[in-house]
């Protein structure tokens, strides 16, 4: 009887690792800035966010076909773009990232990357031969990308400023079924990559050489629901929505439909993949972004508002 009880207890522990994990670090959010509201015309459906070294905030607005610049206090500075396929135009602006001088923007409907200066003047187009499903600009000559294209999925590509692939490494060992290898990723300070799978309960770390360092399953999920669409089985539930890294090297993973607080739970892992904290965003978000100054950015009001929070760590509380 005792043995049975013990086994059930172990099983219970195994099935609920998040809720029972002992958070060794406490992290709190302190809201500092909110950009966009129901009563203004600042944001309609923001998709991507990036912050430069001065704290300026760059956003892509998918519904307005624009990119926008705000200062660190959330004051609107300028915007550019309209619907179209020409230079400086968009059909569905998505990922955005910046370096000291340039702003890089992808489009869900058009291949390649558009580059703008910090005043949002179009500068040039980086051609690519595949669609992009996530982008992180490490510097102007090292742009990390993943793709949804069937032939090129399952790999991280590094392209230079001209769009030439200079390096790639696979993060999946074998061909997985359609869309199951879709990921969000973030590069670490030493060239490593942290990967969160969109439709699998899987977080992975790869070193700078592309070797797998660790793999974690945070939710102990086996499968996601799928729906038949033509001849494809399309997953209909997102497990992890985004991944970000802070200046301490902590990895933040935004949970999706299967988290206790849908699209609000954030799991924090250390560099070894151990869960050290978790917290809940005030509003559901599709993405997480953490800047070099220790601020976290996420969505509110279904994309009409961007919230900027100061990350406050337990040892600072």
């Amino acid at each position, binding site marked *: 009887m005792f043995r049975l009880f013990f086994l059930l207890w172990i099983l219970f522990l195994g099935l609920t690792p998040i809720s029972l994990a002992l958070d060794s670090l406490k992290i709190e959010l302190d809201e500092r800035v909110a950009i966009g509201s*129901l009563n203004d*015309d600042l944001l309609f459906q923001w998709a991507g966010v990036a912050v430069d070294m001065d704290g300026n905030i760059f956003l892509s607005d998918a519904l307005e076909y624009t990119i926008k610049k705000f200062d660190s206090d959330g004051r609107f500075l300028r915007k550019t773009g309209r619907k179209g396929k020409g230079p400086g135009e968009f059909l569905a602006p998505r990922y955005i990232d910046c370096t000291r001088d340039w702003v890089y923007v992808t489009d869900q*409907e058009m291949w390649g990357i558009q580059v703008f200066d910090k005043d949002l003047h179009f500068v040039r187009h980086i051609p690519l031969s595949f669609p992009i499903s996530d982008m992180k600009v490490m510097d102007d000559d090292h742009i990390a990308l993943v793709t949804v294209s069937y032939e090129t999925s399952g790999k991280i590509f590094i392209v230079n400023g001209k769009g030439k692939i200079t390096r790639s490494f696979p993060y999946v060992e074998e061909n997985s079924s359609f869309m199951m290898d879709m990921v969000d990723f973030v590069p670490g300070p030493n060239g490593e990559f942290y990967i969160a799978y969109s439709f699998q309960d899987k977080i992975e770390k790869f070193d700078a050489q592309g070797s797998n360092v660790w793999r974690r399953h945070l939710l102990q999920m086996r499968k996601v629901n799928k729906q038949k669409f033509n001849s494809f089985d399309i997953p209909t539930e997102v497990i992890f929505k985004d991944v970000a890294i802070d200046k301490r090297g902590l990895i933040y993973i935004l949970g999706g439909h299967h988290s206790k607080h849908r699209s609000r739970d954030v799991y924090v892992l250390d560099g070894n993949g151990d869960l050290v904290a978790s917290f809940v965003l005030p509003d559901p978000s599709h993405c997480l972004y953490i800047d070099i100054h220790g601020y976290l950015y996420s969505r509110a009001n279904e994309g*009409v508002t961007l919230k900027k929070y100061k990350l406050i760590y337990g040892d600072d509380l």
Partner: protein
Amino acid sequence: MRSLSKCKGISIIFIFILICPIYGWEGSQDRCGVKLIFLIDVNDLMCISCLESLLEFCDSLPDETLKERSFGIMMVGKKETEKSFRIVQKKLNCFVKTNQIKFPVHLDRSSGNCGFEINGSAVICIDFKNNVIRKFKFPLSRFQKTQIFSVISGHSE
């Protein structure tokens, strides 16, 4: 399931009848023109590329059809809070403005009350008696577009 579809159909026609007088369609003597009702799923509005097929189709229609014989209904579903409606209204205003939509689009606050599940954007062809002739879901195939054009032209002759 069938009663839900019926409920949806009744709901759409009901909204259409309510809106008709606003746009001068009430008691129309125009007995030869097919009208188009664009049902826009609010979920598609959150993913702008999901509405590309609808926008492309609108671009292919004559201005006269869009301005005088077309009408849009944004299906909001079960989002019941005032805040949700205001968010959708703001997004809808932006969608209409940036895509230069030439027909009025009404936000349907009642579509969630029937209990049916909104399942993608669609276009409905109705005759001068407000009878539904055909319904097509987006994205449209080339054949479906041809069918719609034939319905439009067939009833215009």
